[in-house]
């Protein structure tokens, strides 16, 4: 019993470890923009792992500098959203097993 539980635990740990890589759910950006944005999100979330707001701020401001005026960003673990985005400027991804990041551009 105990060993089973222990196995279950280790399995879960492994799974959680496995499921921390960045997984893009939806995106209609170009390839280069998408990769860059994803890297940026990963960096931001790792840097501000405690504070979602700061992570989102960093993402939004960097995207504004790189790709043009008005980007929006949400980082969180449980929310629903309904947004309007400019075509070819949406990235919706999961990271770290718990956080979901959505970045979009809408002037």
């Amino acid at each position: 019993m105990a060993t089973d539980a222990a196995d279950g635990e280790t399995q879960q740990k492994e799974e959680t470890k496995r499921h921390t890589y960045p997984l893009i759910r939806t995106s209609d950006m170009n390839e280069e923009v998408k990769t860059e944005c994803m890297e940026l999100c990963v960096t931001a979330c790792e840097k501000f792992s405690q504070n979602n707001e700061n992570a989102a701020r960093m993402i939004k401001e960097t995207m504004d500098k790189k790709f043009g005026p008005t980007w929006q960003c949400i980082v969180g673990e449980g929310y629903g959203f309904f947004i309007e985005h400019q075509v070819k400027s949406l990235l919706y991804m999961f990271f770290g097993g718990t956080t979901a990041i959505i970045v979009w551009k809408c002037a």
Partner: protein
Amino acid sequence: MPTRGGLEKKPTQAVVNGSVPAQRRTSQLPRNSIMGNFRDDEQDFGNMPELSDEALRPIRPDDQLKLTEAELNEEHTRILTTRNPQAAENIVRYSYKDRMYKPIPHIDQLAIHFQLDGNLILRDSDEGRRQIARDGGEYSIDDDEEEEEDIQTTVTATEIDEDAAAKEGDEDEEEKSQKPSATVSRTKKLTNQFNFSERASQTYNNPCRDRETFVEQTPRATFSDNVSQWAIFDAYNEDYDLQQKAKEKEQKKTLTKKDEEKKKKFVAVDLSGDDMAKYARSKAASVSLKIIERMINQNTFDEIAQDFKYWEDAADEYREQEGSLLPLWNFQYDLTKKLSCTHLTWNSQYSDMFAVAFGSYDFLKQAHGIILIFSLKNPSFPEYIYQTESGVMCLDFHHTHSNLLCCGFYDGSVAVYNVADDTKRPKYQSSARNGKHTDPVWQVRWQKDDLDANFNFYSVSSDGRVVCWTIVKSDLMYHDIVQLKLEQPVEEPEEAVPLTTLGCGTCFDFNKQQDYLFIVGTEEGKIHKCSKSYNNQFLDTFDAHHMAVYAVRWNCFHPKIFISCSADWTVKIWDINYKIPLFVYDLGSAVGDVAWAPYSSTVFAACTADGKIFVFDLNVNKYEALTEQIVVQKKRTKLTHIAFNQKHPVLLAGDDRGNVTSLKLSPNLRKKPKVKKGQDINEGPEAESVKLDKILALIRDPDDAKSKAVPSQQQIGTTPLSATS
């Protein structure tokens, strides 16, 4: 000591204002009376403090002039005048009139000590009232304003004598001075009209123009989702599974490589390709794509389409005996560039569709063959393409079921294609077991359905057989009709076994009115009249030509006239009853094909190996062609076949480079004979045959009596164009 006042030599002029007449000059008073003066005036000067004698005594300054009493008592007279003591008395000016210096008679004595130009105007004066009225409102004296004004002090007396100079100086200073600062309170300052000038100016303002634009919004899309921990977890799991599957697939692929997988991959790629491509291949799109293709073709070849419909050669009005052929579309296909056109036939049902057979006439260079079915509506690409292993030499559309196409090949086999089928294979094909000819099949022709309502067609070939093929329940059955036996050569030695050699049939045609009757042309130049009923014998034989007969055609209207053309450069018109041709035309080069026009019994066309097309109308000119025109683009292209369209005045010509040219016949070539007034207009085939009869009668009447007697000579007379008879 008597004191004196500090006054010395005062002018002794009588005082104007008798203000203090009682007072006397202290110098005139006795010396001792000074004290008396003071005592007298004590009452006046109540303020003066009592003084002791000593303190009151005026002190004489040290540098005072010391005069004796006598001198002091002297009286001096002084006179005040208006003479300016500073003014010069001897100013001299140059006089231009007298040409010398002259003293000025009158010298100005005015000395200005102080000058102030004010800008105050009396309120009640005209100017004042005017200004008040102009400025409007109350005018109130403001002391502060006046004090703020700059006061000019001009002391010019020391410098200048003359008025003009003084005025100039004034004005200069006036202008230099600042204008009184305008502290605008309720009142406006009154301005001196003489020396106050106000300047204002208005710069030019450019006119303004309004412009507006409306910018198109960038394309937007909405997106929504719910984020939750379980959703994230599920997504990761899914992704992980996919990755595992992908890994497994890769492993499989590296182990085995099967063609099926490749094919699957290919198909997969295909399907996953463009949606557009997918749609384009679907059945539903084929109709619309076809329409689009036709439209594009119509646009591209718009001029030709217009010509086809409407162009009539205007020059035909001026030349009665000539016509012309206007080239319309040119039909080409990549794979037929090296092949010759071996046959042309129009579809019986659709007047714009025609089939072209491609093969090779060269005995040594035999390659594959192609059947192309074109439509006039799409000149750039054939509607149907059938590739065959051996060259196709002839084909024919069924008269009622125009989707059935029978064709004969160079290798001797015949086949029937169903155009409506999707497959590119023939529906029926004859094989070696099945009665296939041993030599190229030169012509095939559908016949009317036989008594059992089966389709059947005839073929003629170089192996000397005319064969009837019947399609019986998905099978092709053959039946020899005639064998073209050659006449036995006379010189054959008697010992040898008599061989029945067969001639080589090259063409045939069935009579339009009497179906059983047909004529066959051979390579030896003979034309045989045959019947379907008689197997072994010909009904008649014509020694038509010196070389192979390439085409024989019955006249569409007249039941007894047919035409033949041959490699010996001639085209001959025959009456079935007479062994001698009615007309012979020498065209200067091997004649590949001849065809009667479907609209007239007297018009026919022939094409030659030097690329020319000849069109004759016996009604107009019995001996010369109306049109002789080169229709090929490149030199040394032989024309192999021609065909008239049943409905439109269009002629098709095929050549040995794989091109098919369409030509429009000019009006002169499609004339119907003029109808005299009063005569009944007989249209239709009967009229045509009557027309032809008339022409024949013209020729034959003088000959009739003599034709049987001296045939050859007469023919020379009536056929001046024949080379040698």
